[in-house]
């Protein structure tokens, strides 16, 4: 039986879907009104989604981070929240075109996953570390999603500029590159502390070993190694622009692969 929070999930789903449609039209026809409506819908969808998450928390009696549906929902929630911050900071509505795309990918993924609520968490999940580990990892991955979105914009703009044309709606290449780096800089420490450190400490508390080479652990390690490489290439080798954008997109693709890897690989992290 579906719990009542799922109704709110669907409200946000339709808001995000419509928002993406409006943003696409905005991008195509460059009518400001479409962009404003897209932004409004994206932010409007955030309200039922927040209510849904809180309601699910109340109904199930535990933080809603215990299965893939819940995790994908929280990740998309985080991406919309980051968009709100970016909007306040840079006032560039156009970023919404790509953020809404990433949000749509996440929320469509969530919509396809089983939404049953587990009132009883398996004993291993009954720990405060669940909240720390999963929320920080989702926040980190949400920031990587933003980095991916602006990187797509960067590649499009720079490709057009090479053909002596421009996408004027987009922020400058420098700014896009800077947001890409900033988003990774926000995501990386959160991911390191949340996904890896908090996860390892929790594993130590629950099973007596910090690291067990579980598929998801290895997946997270690969993502971490990848973004570590990104930061070193950027800070030491001055890899910027196109190269940094490609790395950022590849990093997020890996993040998504690791997320869906649960379905085929199982292991300690496959909780429905």
């Amino acid at each position: 039986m579906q719990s009542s929070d799922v109704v709110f999930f669907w409200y946000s789903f339709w808001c995000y879907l419509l928002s993406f449609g409006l943003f696409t039209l905005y991008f195509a026809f460059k009518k400001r009104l479409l962009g404003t409506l897209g932004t409004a819908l994206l932010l409007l969808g955030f309200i039922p989604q927040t209510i849904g998450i809180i309601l699910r928390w109340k109904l199930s009696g535990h933080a809603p981070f215990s299965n893939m549906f819940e995790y994908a929902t929280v990740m998309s929630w985080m991406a919309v929240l980051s968009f709100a911050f970016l909007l306040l900071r840079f006032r560039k509505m156009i970023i919404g075109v790509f953020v809404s795309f990433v949000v749509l990918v996440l929320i469509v993924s969530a919509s396809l996953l089983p939404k049953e609520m587990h009132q009883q968490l398996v004993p291993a999940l009954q720990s405060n570390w669940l909240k720390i580990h999963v929320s920080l990892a989702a926040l980190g991955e949400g920031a990587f999603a933003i980095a991916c979105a602006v990187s797509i914009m960067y590649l499009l703009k720079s490709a057009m500029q090479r053909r002596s044309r421009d996408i004027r709606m987009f922020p400058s290449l420098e700014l896009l590159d800077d947001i890409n780096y900033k988003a990774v800089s926000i995501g990386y420490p959160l991911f390191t502390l949340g996904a890896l450190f908090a996860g390892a400490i929790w594993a130590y508390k629950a099973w007596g070993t910090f690291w067990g080479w579980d598929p998801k652990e290895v997946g997270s390690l690969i993502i971490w190694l990848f973004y570590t490489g990104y930061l070193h290439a950027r800070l030491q080798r001055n890899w910027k622009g196109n190269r940094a954008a490609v790395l950022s997109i590849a990093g997020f693709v890996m993040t998504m692969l690791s997320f869906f890897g649960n379905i085929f690989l199982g292991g300690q992290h496959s909780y429905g």
Partner: protein
Amino acid sequence: MPKSNKSNIQQFMDAFTSMRLTIIVLIVLAAASILVIIFQNYHPADFYGWEEHYRTHTHPLKYKLYSFFQLFAPYHSWWFISLLTLLCISLLLCSIQRFSIIMRIIRANDDFRQETRLSSQENYHRLKLPAEIALPLTARLLKRRFYRIYERMEPERTLLFAKRNAVSRLGPLFCHVGLLALFLGGLIAGIWGKSVLLWGEPGEFIRAPFASHSVKVDDFTIEYNANGQIKDYISVLKVFDADSNLVMDRSVEVNHPLRYGGVSYYQSSYRVHPRKVKSATVAAATVGRTDVDTITVAFGTASPIPQTGYSIELADFAADFQIAAEGVISKSEQLSNPAFLVQFLKDGENAGHQWVFARFPSVHSSEEAPFRISLVSFDPLYYTGLQAAVNPGTPFIWTGFAVMTLGLILVFYFNHRLVWVAFTRRPGGEDEIHIAGSSHKFKEQFKQETADH
């Protein structure tokens, strides 16, 4: 010779501290890990007899290849440890090499720059203002933003050098040292760490081979919620030291281990006792009577059936009942077909018996029994599975977490910024101010900020 010797060392250092090597090792590690995940997905090595299975079911050449690369235990293999060692050496040398450079940057207090050098910098601004107004104003602005300011007077100009968060330059070093500590901790755990799964039934003493103390399992229970889902596993333990003194008395749950004498005990697993239960509740109906007595009987003890003069005793149990050549056995440790042998006693004398089946209430194995017994419920007896572990790498790992977290905070939440100002005095009050700034990170944002002021 000494000269070429030195250059050899230099070459070695350069090779190991090059960014290229680090990036290649990181990529190889990531790629190898992906391949290992795929391999393990098709060749799981977590079932009983897997070694024999793969030896006989794999093509000999393939098996040789797998064995050579130790693919069944890849994370302890020679190639994986070599890659990690390479990474460690590179990290260590890189940290040593950069330490003095970093310290020089942090300590710098005389990096004054004249206007000619500033004008070529990225964030350069020129203003016309009298020096006596501009100088204190600039100093105040910088101080308010927590800059540390150094000043030098020259005949024609005053130079300011200001820096903020220089300590953030230590961040990467902390990250590398923290990571090294983590690797070291992992290595120590791998070599000297010990772990064993101990099984204990309530009342039993267990002892890890590497512990001087012993642990008594007082009780083990599985808690269920109202819907019958498992809520928790709880082992009630008593720890006795080498002289049999009780030194600790507490319970262990999932996520709540017990630590004593360097050994940690984790609630890890459980098993059903195949031939014992804690108790059973049965309904006893006298033949020819309509009323039923419900009695709870502990295993191995007798309980009277009220007003009949009879008692019953749970004499035997099989979790997965089967009759074999040697008599009744439990085919498995699963509660697949639980059956109880109920013994009837009258005045302490044997008065018949009956096998009662939980799944098949209508099956009665004995016709001579004075009562018809059916099962109401029963409380299985479980063994607790406690993982006992000693991990001498733990202090290194905690240190690694702490140092690396500090490093990450320094790298990502503090930004080393430098500002240079040259106040040049021109005759006739046409003083000029030249300002340039540099930010280690977030250059775009810094550019905006400097432009705003």
